């Protein structure tokens, strides 16, 4: 199936953009379809392209929007809970709900979910004008892939409550591995006709930005579980956690 799905003007979006029906076409998914797409983002199989297999020229905005919303609150709430558990027992610690962090998390996650696809789409369109690629994606399909690829971070954020540095970094590796490979396998067919260096640089940039997002969230929202207080907390007292930071 070597069809090139160019830009937004697909056959089904026939309503003008100022009507409500136009936007309804982006929410034309059933429950089982959303579950299928989420499952596809969790199981990257080499050779199976997420867009071709699951989206099939019906990109939706429901998944990306609500996955990002859930992720924002998951990170903020888990970060708050984890800090509370780490500092439990300290005499000088006064618990605050840290509500400001919700707005910060929302800005970061939504900016990532919209601006990075925009930049990537612009870049791919530019390369497309120079090198004829067989596969090209519309902007909404890229947004869709990015949105669904963020789903793995929701359970990861919840598990980051565990105040062990090693556990947290293992979780980062797993999440990055899964979602990074979904993204890489999706975009490799779009750049493989191109100059080898540019293709590899593009994929590398995608994975790098993804890494920055996850490591940045871990560092900003979750305090390091340092042992600078009496060992009466939930951390196992016989381990010495590295106090490098």
């Amino acid at each position: 199936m070597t069809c090139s799905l160019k830009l937004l003007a697909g056959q089904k979006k026939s309503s003008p953009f100022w009507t409500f029906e136009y936007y309804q076409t982006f929410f034309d998914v059933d429950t089982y379809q959303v579950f299928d797409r989420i499952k596809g983002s969790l199981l990257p199989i080499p050779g199976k392209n997420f867009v071709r297999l699951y989206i099939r020229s019906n990109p939706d905005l429901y998944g990306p929007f609500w996955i990002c919303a859930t992720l924002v609150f998951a990170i903020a709430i888990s970060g708050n809970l984890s800090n509370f558990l780490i500092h439990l027992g300290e005499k000088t610690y006064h618990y605050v709900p840290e509500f400001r962090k919700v707005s910060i998390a929302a800005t970061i996650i939504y900016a990532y979910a919209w601006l990075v696809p925009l930049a990537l789409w612009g870049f791919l369109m530019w390369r497309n004008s120079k090198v004829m690629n067989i596969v090209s994606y519309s902007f909404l399909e890229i947004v869709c892939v990015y949105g669904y690829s963020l789903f793995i971070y929701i359970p990861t954020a919840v598990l980051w409550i565990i105040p062990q540095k090693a556990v947290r970094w293992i979780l980062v590796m797993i999440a990055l591995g899964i979602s990074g490979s979904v993204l890489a396998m999706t975009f490799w067919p779009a750049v493989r006709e191109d100059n080898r260096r540019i293709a590899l640089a593009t994929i590398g940039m995608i994975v790098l930005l993804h890494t920055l997002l996850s490591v940045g969230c871990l560092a900003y929202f979750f305090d390091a579980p340092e042992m600078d207080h009496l060992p009466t907390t939930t951390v196992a007292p016989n381990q010495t956690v590295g106090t490098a930071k």
Partner: protein
Amino acid sequence: MRSHIREFDSSTLNESVQNTIMRDLKAVGKKFMHVLYPRKSNTLLRDWDLWGPLILCVTLALMLQRSSIDSEKDGGPQFAEVFVIVWFGAVTITLNSKLLGGNISFFQSLCVLGYCILPLTVAMLVCRLVLLAEPGPINFMVRLFVVIVMFAWSIVASTAFLADSQPPNRKALAIYPVFLFYFVISWMILTFTPQ
């Protein structure tokens, strides 16, 4: 110039202020009863009003605020933040359910979502009372239990009213944001700490 039959009435302008207020209060009160004992009924949807949600939202936001003397160290939500979350959240959920193809009107959905905050407002009141006692794990467990029960009550109430207006193969997609909305409000209530 008292008007007794409301449907044929077009001159409520001439009635006493007490009549007007009592009529609206009774309508709000009737809807509160419908939320507290949720059955599938159309009353909330048919005669929607936004007074109830406004009262509940203002009450909740006032109770979640505290006298911010140390406003830098204080990390809880301010009045405006609670207000924005409730109304912005309700509007987003309504838009979502309409985009998915639901046949409920915009204000009807806002009305239902606003009224179903009532159990959580009751939970906030109970939590504030419980917090007057001495702090400790038992204090926290009581608050946790109350918040969980009221959260479940809100979900059940809003689902009873909203579920029928969604296409059958998208019900879960429309209900999940409601779950997230009430979960966030419950979290704000549970993590409330006074000075």
